[in-house]
């Protein structure tokens, strides 16, 4: 098993390598001159050329990639064009804030999604099932930023229950409760679509498991329904649910960009937004890279978790 974990971890290396290449090339495609971006539109051509040289922009692409990669491995994400700071300093604190938001959103969408999907599956065809699945589909059909705006309009402006923006009240930061108060709306806005996806998948998975021979077989022994549902149905629905939830991390990190912008959440998404609107390519590059890396790690964890949950997979791994 340990060997598998190790080899699975190592197997992400080519993917990570590919990710760095994609990210690097993305930035190379940009028309325009990074040196100019740094110095501003009214800089002299000489200054620009000098900076180009110093930045190594006149080197062949492969040399630039090598240099960039080796910096990357040393934890150096480069310099922001517009903020003129090491990007790592800009992004790391924000990354933590984004993780807080992501975790909160995940908690919401996983718990609610699973509960909704489970009840719908057990009451398949009922009004509850149809209604909640309809709502789920509607939830998945709305842009996150729009949900965020509507939540903000309703709960912050009309009802004035939740704050409009930020992570803490600046005037008198109130610790965890204050954070909770601030996180509700952005977390819900971010979670909506994933909630719908998880609910729908949970429903179809549970329905599927309910039709499995072994579930029927246990029924034939007169075991109580609730017990079968808990012990067998839920247990076997777990891997797909975990899988989809893991994938939702990626979606939530994407969606967080929108709610972070709307609710002014000081996260990496907001920094990316600013970077996109100011064409701060190194920051875009670093932000995308950081999120992709996180996503790869999350997927890795989900994979390992699934192996851990599936005796069958474990064995096929041992057999390899």
């Amino acid at each position, binding site marked *: 098993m340990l060997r598998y974990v190790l080899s699975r971890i190592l197997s992400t290396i080519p993917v990570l390598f590919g990710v760095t290449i994609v990210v690097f090339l993305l930035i190379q495609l940009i028309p325009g001159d990074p040196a100019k971006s740094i110095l501003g539109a009214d800089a002299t051509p000489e200054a620009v050329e000098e900076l180009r040289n110093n930045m190594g922009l006149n080197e062949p692409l492969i040399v630039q990639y090598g240099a960039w990669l080796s910096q990357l491995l040393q934890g150096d994400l480069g310099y922001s064009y517009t903020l003129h700071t090491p990007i790592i300093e800009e992004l790391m604190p924000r990354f933590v804030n984004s993780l807080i938001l992501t975790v909160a959103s995940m908690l919401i969408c996983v718990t609610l999604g699973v509960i909704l999907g489970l009840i719908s599956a057990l009451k398949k*065809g009922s009004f509850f099932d149809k209604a909640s699945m309809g709502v789920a589909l509607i939830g998945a059909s709305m842009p996150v930023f729009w949900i965020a705006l509507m939540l903000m309009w309703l709960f912050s402006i009309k009802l004035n229950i939740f704050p409009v923006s930020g992570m803490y009240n600046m005037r008198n930061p109130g610790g965890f409760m204050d954070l909770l108060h601030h996180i509700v709306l952005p977390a819900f806005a971010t979670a909506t679509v994933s909630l719908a996806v998880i609910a729908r998948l949970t429903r179809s998975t549970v329905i599927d498991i309910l039709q*499995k*021979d*072994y579930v*029927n*077989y*246990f*029924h*034939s*022994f*007169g*075991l*109580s329904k609730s*017990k079968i549902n808990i*012990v*067998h149905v839920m*247990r*076997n629905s777990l891997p797909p649910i975990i899988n989809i939830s893991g994938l939702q991390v990626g979606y939530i990190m994407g969606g967080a960009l929108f709610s972070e912008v709307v609710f002014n959440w000081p996260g990496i998404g907001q920094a990316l937004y600013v970077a996109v609107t100011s064409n701060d390519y190194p920051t875009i590059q670093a932000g995308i890279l950081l999120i992709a890396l996180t996503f790869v790690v999350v997927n890795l964890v989900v994979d390992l978790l699934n192996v851990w*949950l*599936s*005796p*069958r997979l474990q*064995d096929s791994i041992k057999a390899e």
Partner: protein
Amino acid sequence: MNVQSALNTESLLKVEGLSTKIKTPEGVLTVLEDVNLTIEKGEIMAIVGESGSGKSMMINSILQLLPKTLLEAYSGNIEVEGENLFAIGEKKMQEIRGKKISLVAQNAMTSLDPSYRVGKQIVEIMLEKTGLTKEQAKEKALNLLEQMGIDDPKRIFQSYPHQLSGGLRQRVVIAMSLACDPDLIIADEPTSALDPTVQLQVLDLFQTINQQFGTAILMITHDFGVVARIAEKVAVMYAGQIVEKGETADVIFNPTHPYTQSLIKCIPNLDWVFDKGAGKKPLWQIKGEPPNLMNLSQGCRFFNRCHVAKDICQSTNPLLKTVKPYRNEHSVRCVLIGGGNE
């Protein structure tokens, strides 16, 4: 329970005039019609039929496992030790499942939960259905596994379903069915997915169980070879009806219904192999295909395929009539033999 019914408790399972209707997208379908069966304690009975003959519906009706969304209606009676299953309510029915009647599933691979060790699954049933403690249940489970002819019960107990071979899995499922000492085991084609050599072992195992525990067995199969091997009584099903039933020897060596006759003759005759002079006889075949239950004509359901059919068969719905009323009951549903109504 009155005295009269108490006297009737002799039969372990009594199915009388059972008809089962289910809902399908195309309309209501009568999957079982007028089924009569009796299984006594300690008896091995087989039901033979091809796909679509209603064998599985039989099991689902007896154990009342048809989901409400699928079931249209039952009619007739099913009694277990004199108690009418349609009258006792779900709670009591739960008691009967597993404890009185248990099932050996057709496909052992898909009938075990892949996420748990097989031992745990056996123990789980015991814990819920009997008053055993965890330790007792475990011990009993290990015993059962051993009795199933498993050499290394401890290892098997700790195994996951996918780690076992087909034969072992089937043994585990059989052990599971015995977990609560049921009076009747319904075995749903328990050997059809197995290799021939394993099939033989498993069939022998059923026989051992029957002898050792006195458990009655209702064996569902499509193979007369299996019937011949273990069953005392046999019922032949065709298109949702029992067309012939009786003692195994009577039915096999004196098949009366044309369908039964054909089925038996379909089995390749190997005489030419052993008797050099015999030569190959052409293989008997039944023309056509089993009918679609959705659009049955009114007469005999076997009419189209029957090699002796007469005009009367097309219009008359045959009834199950006893052809050999003395000693061993042997009955047949054929107008030409027993007559019919209309």
